[in-house]
């Protein structure tokens, strides 16, 4: 656990705990998964899929749908439980995570998983693809919007900043980036591995209109997303301050849980107990 980072004071509601319990069950079934990363991005995706995005699970390619790319593809456990919850595919698929007869892999795949707009997992790809979506919307006069969820570790990639320049050059106000800023990456804190600060200033300097929120606070996420685009001629970036592993005390800020292999039955029980839905 990294004691140098603040814990999030935000208490998780019943739905956030329930979604995390599904993630724990997937972790148990597969014996592996980027659980810390999924817990970190859970509320960001939840607010998008519950209240912001327009989509039709019965017609995942509905042309008017909003496009959402989880560019930090390793956080896919959070995406999968939401897509199943919304009816894009049956819950049964969740228990086949990373199995040879399942559609859900350790990173989301376009064409294999209904509702997934782009194959991600290699970092630094999603924003560029999102730019293509947004440029197409402009060309076609379509009203759909594009949302790209990136991570802080991903922001080490030069390609992300190439894309940031491009998005602002084209004044893509229909494009919103949500940064899952939990301040930890695989090896250590982002400040130790490759410092991103001043992070919000960087996004602003690259031509984005920005806001900062507590990425586990539903109200703050709602308010910020409702205000997008923050500027009529700029893409928006919401820096979401999050906690890796949020929701389970022994997982929070503990890099041994960034990706977890073979969690014990006891650990699974303890996680489920702490996430008890009352």
């Amino acid at each position, binding site marked *: 656990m990294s004691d140098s980072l603040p814990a999030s004071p935000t208490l998780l509601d019943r739905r956030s705990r329930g979604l995390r319990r599904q993630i724990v069950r997937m972790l148990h079934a597969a014996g592996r998964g980027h659980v810390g990363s999924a817990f970190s991005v859970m509320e960001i995706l939840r607010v998008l899929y519950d209240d912001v995005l327009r989509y039709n699970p019965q017609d995942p390619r509905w042309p008017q749908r909003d496009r959402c790319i989880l560019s930090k593809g390793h956080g896919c456990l959070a995406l999968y439980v939401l897509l199943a919850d919304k009816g894009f595919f049956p819950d049964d698929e969740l228990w086949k995570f990373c199995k040879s007869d399942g559609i859900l892999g350790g990173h989301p795949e376009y064409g294999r998983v209904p509702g997934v707009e782009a194959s991600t997992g290699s970092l630094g*790809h999603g924003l*560029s*693809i999102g730019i*293509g*979506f947004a*440029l197409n919307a402009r*060309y076609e006069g379509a009203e759909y919007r594009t949302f790209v969820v990136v991570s802080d570790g991903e922001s080490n990639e030069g*390609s992300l900043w190439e894309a940031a320049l*491009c998005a602002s050059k084209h004044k893509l106000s229909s494009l919103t980036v949500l940064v899952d800023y939990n301040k930890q990456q695989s090896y250590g804190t982002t400040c130790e591995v490759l410092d991103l600060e001043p992070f919000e200033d960087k996004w602003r300097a690259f031509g984005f209109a920005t806001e900062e929120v507590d990425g586990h606070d539903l109200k703050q996420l709602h308010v910020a997303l409702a205000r997008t685009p923050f500027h009529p001629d700029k893409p928006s970036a919401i820096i979401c301050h999050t906690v890796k592993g949020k929701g389970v005390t022994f997982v929070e800020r503990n890099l041994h849980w960034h990706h977890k292999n073979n969690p014990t039955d006891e650990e699974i029980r303890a996680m489920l107990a702490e996430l008890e839905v009352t």
Partner: protein
Amino acid sequence: MRQTCLDMVYELAKRDERIFFIGSDLGIGTLKQFQAEMPDRFFMEGVSEANIIGMATGLALEGKIIYVNTIAVFITRRCFEQIAVDLCLHNVNVRLIGNGGGLVYAPLGPTHEAIEDIAIFRALPRMTVLAPADALEMRRLMPTTVDHRGPIYVRLGKGGEPVVTDDRVPFEIGMAFPMRVGRDALIVTTGVMLKTALDAAALLAEKDIQVAVLHMPTIKPLDTDAILEYAGCVTAILTLEEHSVIGGLGSAVAEVIAEANFSVPKRFKRMGIPDCFPDQYGSQASLMARYGLTAKAVELTVEQLLSVPQSSVV
């Protein structure tokens, strides 16, 4: 060839609203008419190849057909992972046009010489690799790229190459073109080396050595039927390409020949750029000469190959 290619992009885009163009930081005035007449489908995105490939992918996933153009080394080496993951894994209709395949940029040195582009792209699932021989072939090739499913790489020569192909033959992706018949040996070639192969065959014909020439403007998917058909008739096979001898056309043909298990063994030789970064400047022609990619050197190599005693072949 290069100008014809870009002219064709313009012509095709005029007829088909699905067609977009993205350049990096190309020479001033490139596709000026395209930009003036179809500004909402023309993009010049700066020296940011990784982003350009992703952006093209996003547009292509929305049903557009994207022609991307920059210098061959930068569209192959720099953004290789974006090509593998964005273009090939998503199987999108993006066409990469690489200026200066091979040794074209000789005076600019090894950072600009695309000597392994075919090898690395040939290894990518779903990628199509094209290397036309001249402007006439480029003109026939480009319309076939519009509705082809999946990503394509088009390797451009320097421009101004002598025309050696026949415009009466319709171009088809995946098809080899027999350019000359001969019973003694077979030269399999691609791109601008077709001219060198034909010149070498003419020199050999004067010595009564009849050499067939098989031109393969599509290196992937490889026309294995044509290779087997023409290789089956001769004792000696030589491949000729402006590319590293590792992984390119020569390797592709060698794989086919090796797995064919002909009952009579074949003599085989790859001619190309040796496994090195070119160590001189000069010109494309001077580097070609340095690495034996001339008609005279091919003539000599064919003769040597045919004179190898049968025992040392077996």
